[in-house]
């Protein structure tokens, strides 16, 4: 009956798998942010102007803002259920570094809420008349940027998960942190259209991604410990 100690890698995989199974069984949580992204992005042409030339100018910004809002909407259920049913306590009592377990939860969360948005973005970009040469860059920036949004959002959620009624506090904490990513993402796409060299801009986004991957889970872990206190 008794087994050997699990390695941190095994605990990481088990947590990742568990969260993916939960997401599969709670399809609402997966579909909601995705639908939200589609709706917000499709409302812009109605609100601004259906003129293709004008849409093309704002397309990158619209896609990035929609992705940011969708990621914010999806954040809320990252730790909430675990907090309410006590699984979070079990997570904190694991002998493994909390960094890896939190990272596993973040990765699973991005796979089900961030990745679908990235994958559908070319379709929306087509609808918004984004110039042809910017498609590739848009996809790359979203691919690098949305994980950063998830990782940063995780800190805000971890800080607020213990609060009864949270309202807008999550947005107030998370959005200022997300602004640099939004700026870097949209500028990269804009500058490509202006014919600029891409390397430097992508390097900045890459640095943000690496920084978030290495540091944000530590902050989330510390915030979770405070929240269950």
């Amino acid at each position, binding site marked *: *009956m*008794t*087994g*050997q*100690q*699990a390695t941190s890698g*095994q*605990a990481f995989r*088990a*947590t990742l798998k*568990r969260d993916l*199974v*939960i997401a599969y*069984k*709670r399809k609402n949580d997966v579909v909601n942010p995705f639908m939200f992204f589609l709706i917000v992005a499709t409302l812009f042409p109605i609100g601004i102007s259906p003129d293709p030339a004008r849409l093309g100018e704002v397309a990158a910004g619209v896609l990035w803002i929609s992705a940011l809002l969708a990621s914010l909407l999806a954040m809320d259920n990252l730790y909430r*259920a*675990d907090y*309410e*049913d*006590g*699984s979070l*306590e*079990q*997570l*904190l*009592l*694991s*002998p*493994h570094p909390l960094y890896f*377990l939190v990272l596993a939860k973040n990765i699973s969360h991005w796979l089900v809420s961030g990745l679908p948005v990235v994958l559908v973005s070319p379709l929306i970009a087509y609808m918004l008349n984004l110039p042809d040469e910017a498609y590739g860059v848009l996809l790359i920036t979203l691919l690098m940027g949305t994980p950063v949004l998830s990782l940063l959002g995780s800190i805000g959620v971890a800080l607020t998960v213990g609060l009864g009624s949270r309202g807008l506090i999550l947005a107030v904490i998370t959005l200022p942190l997300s602004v640099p990513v939004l700026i870097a993402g949209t500028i990269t796409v804009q500058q490509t259209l202006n014919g600029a060299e891409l390397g430097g801009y992508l390097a900045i986004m890459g640095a943000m991604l690496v920084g978030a991957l290495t540091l944000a889970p530590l902050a989330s872990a510390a915030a979770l410990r405070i929240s*269950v*206190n």
Partner: protein
Amino acid sequence: MEAAETQSGSVEKSSHSILSVNSLFCERDDRVLFRDLDFAVNEGQVLQIKGSNGSGKTTLLRILCGLNDAYEGEILWYGEPVEERVEDYFGSLAYIGHRVGVNKVLTPVENLRWTCSLQQVVEDEALYAALAQLGLRGFEDSQCFTLSAGQQQRVSLSRLLVSDARLWILDEPFTTLDASGVKQLEALLREHADRGGAVMVTTHHNLAVSDLQILKLG
């Protein structure tokens, strides 16, 4: 059933102490929950923590598990400060709180597999055997929201059967169990202690466990 009933301060410490606590002080909202609390849990002991509602039983257990750090005093794991041996300590601890740690959309097996995998490698047969032993045969693959509160409690308790943890810290594990469940859990506690483990449990229920130690709070 003999109970060595003691006020805080006199549960005997010995070289076999798994966990010992020295002059623990905790204050919440300007109310002192306990002060100068000294006790120890030894191998082979079942320690019941008694006290009226709000006397700090849950807080004490959460402090011991490191889930609450609003305390002063010393907690020793095999004679060494617990902060210095966190990995070893968490690897040998099974905690079941008020919130039992059972995800509602997962099945009992999936729940058990995850909580166990945080500590050790377990075979699926062991998981199924543990669930069957606690009367959940046939429910292994139902989602947990279809189970009653007592059954969810049993899902959570089945972890104790699979786990190698030496120290069990259980917060009100009897609340939703039926009479046979209570008997079974009492037997489990005794068995664990007889194997050299230790149990700390809070409950208002009169535990029918032989050689029970009691710590009174408040």
